[in-house]
């Protein structure tokens, strides 16, 4: 039964894609613009890429952002996994509802408020115990871990809630002590969730402007902060070049992930046929 797709549907689809992707395509095209003025086409050139690679400022901001993102993702995954385990596996403990609420609060808290309250915390701490001496990479990282952890906890919790708890019981039954069960069974079970959580935390941290602005100090400028300040000073096409590079990296990542997923699905399909045919 073949149904002719209506012209309306196709045009809606095209419009949707155009809305999403034309700005990005324009930006990529303009990154090869020779003109200094952003909206004026002055011929093809790669000079903004050269400028980009020679810009000390952009390199250090990128490096800082990546350092913060990697540290954040790692710590957020560790802490978030523990929280997720507690949420999904310890069924009855005192204050569980409060704990659940407090874990998910950062998800709904406006970033401005998170940023402001963390800034107040750091200032108070500095006055009381003299730490952190100056705000910068450390404070940004702590702030990012605080809110990224909540996302990881939710990812891990949903993964564990969906998983068959009898696997862990079976391991206990076969003589594994609880810590052994965690290592042998639970962690392999939630490993995909931990990878997803790490990537999510990494992205959130790399992307964050508002909280970083609040808790950073002089001399520590992350990439989003740099781009934002550049916009206020007047955009130069080297930002286009930077964005294009980021898009290429992200697109490569998505393509590789997609390829791996498809390969895994084909393998699963083969396994299923193997199981169905019996011996």
């Amino acid at each position, binding site marked *: 039964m073949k149904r002719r797709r209506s012209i309306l549907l196709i045009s809606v689809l095209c419009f949707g894609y155009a809305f999403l992707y034309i700005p990005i395509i324009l930006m990529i095209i303009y990154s090869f613009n020779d003109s200094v003025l952003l909206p004026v086409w002055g011929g093809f050139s790669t000079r903004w890429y050269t400028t980009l690679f020679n810009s000390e400022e952009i390199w250090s901001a990128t490096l800082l952002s990546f350092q913060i993102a990697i540290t954040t993702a790692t710590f957020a995954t560790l802490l978030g996994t523990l929280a997720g385990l507690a949420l999904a596996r310890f069924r009855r403990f005192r204050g569980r509802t409060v704990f659940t609420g407090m874990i998910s609060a950062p998800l709904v808290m406006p970033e401005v408020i998170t940023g402001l309250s963390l800034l107040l915390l750091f200032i108070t701490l500095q006055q009381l115990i003299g730490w952190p001496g100056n705000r910068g990479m450390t404070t940004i990282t702590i702030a990012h871990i605080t809110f990224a952890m909540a996302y990881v906890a939710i990812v891990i919790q949903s993964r564990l809630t969906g998983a068959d708890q009898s696997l862990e019981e*079976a391991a*206990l*039954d*076969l003589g594994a002590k609880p810590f052994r069960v965690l290592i*042998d069974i639970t962690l392999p*079970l939630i490993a995909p969730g931990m990878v997803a959580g790490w990537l999510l935390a990494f992205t959130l941290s790399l992307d964050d402007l508002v909280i970083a602005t609040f808790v950073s100090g002089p001399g520590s400028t992350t990439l989003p902060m740099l781009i934002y300040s550049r916009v206020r000073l007047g955009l130069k096409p080297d930002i286009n070049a930077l964005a294009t590079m980021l898009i290429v990296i992200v697109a490569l990542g998505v393509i590789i992930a997609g390829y791996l997923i498809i390969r895994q699905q084909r393998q699963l399909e083969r396994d299923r046929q193997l*199981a*169905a045919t*019996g011996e």
Partner: protein
Amino acid sequence: MNQPHHRPDPYTERPWLNPAISPFIQIQGVTKRFGDFTAVNAVDLAIYQGELFALLGGSGCGKTTLLRMLAGFETPTEGRIIIDGLDMTEVPPYERPVNMMFQSYALFPHMNVFNNIAYGLRRDGIKSDELKRRVNDIIDMVELNPLTHRRPHQLSGGQRQRVALARALVKQPKVLLLDEPLAALDKRLREQTQFELMNIQDQLGITFVVVTHDQEEAMTLATRIAVMGAGQFEQVGTPADIYENPQTRFIAGFIGSANLLSGTVQDCQPEKGTDDAPDTSRVQIVTDEGNQLLSVSTDRVVAAGDAVTLAIRPEKISVTLQDSAVSDTADKVPDNAPNTVSNNGSGTVPGYVSGNVPENVLWGTVQEMAYLGRLSTFRIKTDAGPTLEVTAPNQRRVLDNRHLIDWDDRVRLTFSSDSAVLLTR
């Protein structure tokens, strides 16, 4: 019954009757509450070594909770669990000499068949040669040899079931717990696996405790069955005890099918028992529906006026066409006839104490008939009122679709007084 010298020691088959043996698993006054809900309510149970014991009941009856308490996943709110003389009530699952086969099989998805089976032995610190030998022995037993390197998702349902069984058996537990072991298999595989399970249990002599909701499965597998309802045991006994001598209406209806006729006791006359039969009473009851007078022999104590229920299994009622019944002189005068000879001669069950039992006779019309091949089942509306379910074996071939007894035929139903069971609860 009269040839004890042909039988082995009755206690090896039925250890629960031997007062000299103490039970292997003792469940003493165990209660489990989840908040306000009482899943298991003050149950006592003794299971003996080498038994294949079935916990049977519908969903939510507490059978799985009881099994999980034996495994150590739940701690009883009250009461004690003793296994092989040791109090296991507070012992965590990883220190119990008990292994469990889960309903979902719970195979570790990231390990292959060999490593799944070896997991328990590795936790006990068993290494290299001994590990390999023991795992391979059990793999031989459940016939999984060509599949040792496969992951669980590369196996069929039956193969997974065997891996789960092997994994639970390889540590040679004192007790093997099986949670609905056959529920996930299709019918043909289920029957085959049932016998495999019984063979394995016989070979290893491990005590099995099986949880199931399938009464046929329990009847085939088990040495004894505990039927559970609402957190308590309704009856504990051998499959034959439970089927032939149900203690309550619930049991009579739950195990197999039974016609349940409620009525009132009209008369109760004690009868002196013989050497191998206890004293019984012959009770006349009047059914509530249709005022039919029925006679039943029972060892229960009842008095005239008591409200009781008469349970009679569909296969224990014999059904004949009205016309042929009239022509058959032996059955023509059923009441008080000296029919001892005809009963013994017609190949009834040996040991059937019939004497000169006045049979219960009812007349009726076939309302529905279902032909099931080896037997047919009938729903018969009796003239007195109650509708009875009756099954009859198809001893003669049905030719040209002409059934001996068919829809709307007039029939005569008879059953002897000791085929029916009198229930007071």
